[in-house]
């Protein structure tokens, strides 16, 4: 086991239209840490993983593993194991044949191979199917074999490329728990690539959020969620995306005001207007930080009027999709369980203490004084 460090690692694919897949990245992953690279497809996360695994060389930069420069080391000499989205099991080999393959390649004697395969099969609940071929297994079992094949030789680094994307929702949750349990049992340095923010939040010690080849934020799941450093992170992380709308920020009698394009004041964040470059910004507020009431509101805050356009019922909670009179769309989390009929005229108000502001040009977060998030978030 070892710590992994990336130093100014970048990747360009040359050609008539040069593609910058990855802008220079610095990243340090501690020994035994579980780090997720999160981002939409095409954001460069798989490129980054392939550079770490040695499948493609970086254009610039250095990859360090346990203090050793492995930038151009052959993949098979890196002592890394990988789990793929399509599992990549060897179809002509049995479960045993698949799991012992990495041991065989390293010259582990037969008796020890057998012992370790049996151990691993037990850990993964595959004992009864050790002599089956991959095609005779269910998707979840195939996934388990892939995990077993990767873990069996105790690699220094464990790489996973969207390993759960091919499973149905229920199995995905189950395997998520399994991966968490395995990491606790075998605390190997792990790089996990996914586009699923819920997976990233549930599994990781730290998350690296990427967009268009750029690392936009690195932090713990809680930091990523509560203090998004960039408007992209704000919109990408969270079960229901954060509400984002352009505002102008100005000083008013009651404090700093964020004003929607139609002239209505939407929020009074604890920030000095002077801190907002150019006086315009993107206002962000999560659905659970929006209050709503039928009718024109109670006058205790800057209430914005609108109409319920749609609702999503998620069991206890209901999301209301409200179109404000000014044209902006706002998603509201309703925890009363009452819901609202479509077409209902409502008023909404944002929690002043829970709003985020982002620079309109760069997308970077503008520091806002915020009271600690309530426990319910």
């Amino acid at each position, binding site marked *: 086991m070892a710590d992994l460090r990336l130093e100014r690692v970048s990747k360009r694919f040359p050609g008539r239209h040069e593609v910058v897949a990855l802008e220079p990245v610095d990243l340090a992953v501690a020994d035994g840490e579980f780090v997720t690279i999160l981002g939409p497809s095409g954001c460069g996360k798989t490129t980054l993983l392939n550079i770490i695994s040695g499948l493609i060389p970086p254009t610039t930069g250095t990859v360090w593993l346990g203090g050793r420069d492995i930038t151009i080391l052959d993949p*098979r000499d890196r002592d890394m194991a990988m789990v793929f989205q399509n599992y990549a099991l060897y179809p002509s080999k049995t479960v045993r044949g698949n799991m012992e393959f990495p041991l065989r390649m390293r010259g582990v004697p037969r008796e020890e191979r057998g012992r370790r395969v049996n151990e691993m099969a037990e850990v993964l609940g595959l004992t009864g199917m050790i002599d089956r071929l*991959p095609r005779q297994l269910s998707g979840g079992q195939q996934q388990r074999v892939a995990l077993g094949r990767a873990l069996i030789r105790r690699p220094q680094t464990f790489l996973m490329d969207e390993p759960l994307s091919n499973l149905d929702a229920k199995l995905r949750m189950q395997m998520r728990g399994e991966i968490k349990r395995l990491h606790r049992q075998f605390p190997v340095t792990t790089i996990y690539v996914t586009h699923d923010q819920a997976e990233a939040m549930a599994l990781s010690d730290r998350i690296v959020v990427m967009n268009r080849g750029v690392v936009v934020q690195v932090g713990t799941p809680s930091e990523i969620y509560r203090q998004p450093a960039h408007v992209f992170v704000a919109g990408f992380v969270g079960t229901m995306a954060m509400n984002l709308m352009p505002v102008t920020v100005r000083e008013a009698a009651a404090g700093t005001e964020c004003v929607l394009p139609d002239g209505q004041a939407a929020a009074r964040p604890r920030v000095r207007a002077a801190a907002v470059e150019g006086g315009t910004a993107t206002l962000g507020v999560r659905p659970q930080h929006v209050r709503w009431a039928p009718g024109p509101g109670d006058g205790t805050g800057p209430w914005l009027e609108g109409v319920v356009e749609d609702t999503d019922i998620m069991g206890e909670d209901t999301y209301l999709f409200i179109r404000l009179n000014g044209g902006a769309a706002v998603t509201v989390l309703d925890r009363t369980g009452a819901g609202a009929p479509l077409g209902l005229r409502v008023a909404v108000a944002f929690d002043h203490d829970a709003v985020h502001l982002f620079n309109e040009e760069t997308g970077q977060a503008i520091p806002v004084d915020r009271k600690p998030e309530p426990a319910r978030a």
Partner: protein
Amino acid sequence: MTAGQRLARAVRGAPHALVLLLLVAFSLVPFVWMLTASLEPPIALFTSTPHLLPHPVTLSNYAGLVHPREQGVFFPRYFLNSLIVSFSTVALALLVAVPAAYAFSRFSFAGRNPLMYTILLGSIFPGVNFLVPLFILMNAVHLLDTYGSLILGYLTFSLPLNIWLLRGFFDGIPPEMEVAARLDGASVWRAFAEVALPAAVPGLVATAIYTFILAWDEYLYALAMISSADMRTLPLGLYAYFNEGSIDWGGLTATAIGMSIPVVIVFLVLQRYFISALTKGALKY
């Protein structure tokens, strides 16, 4: 299911079954006829009432398959020649086509696509075009009238399609499998041999069968290359039954039946790989 439902279902399925039956008859009747002709004395073929069952039955037509038929015509020898040529062609075709197809599928190198098209170019022209050039070539390297001339010639006919066919199979195997093997500690060669190759077995089988039949059935090219009686392959040997003014239908059909047997055996042995090619593999695509 009640009897009525069963009947209704049978009636609905009837047109379907009828069409299938016609197709089966269409492909089988000539073969049955050949079998019949091989099992009766030549004279019975020319009775005024056509019949599908042999009458009277005799095995005398098959004597030519084991005994020398006439001066210089010896079918066991032709069988051996055909087997040697066909199996050698298959072995060499796989030996060359598998690595070539794998390289085309997996490695990116300068001129990959132009090279592939160049290889396929050979299949565009009718085989007859190559007859004279190949004859001159074989003459120049003193291979005329040898197994070598036939094997090399058949390879030039089959390799373009072999490579193209196998490339398709390798393209269908997700490269992640070999990447996984590489990360598991295998060399490029090992990953190919232990992971990619077994996954491509149905493709190898299809390629082998195609090449085998091509070499087994070929007549025209063999006619040009082979001059001595000892070197004849089966299709050339069949010509011994065509005499001036008469054709020995009994001997001809009996030999044709004998000639079909290896092909049938090859199919029987390899068919399960065809089936395995159709069943779902270990990978999600």
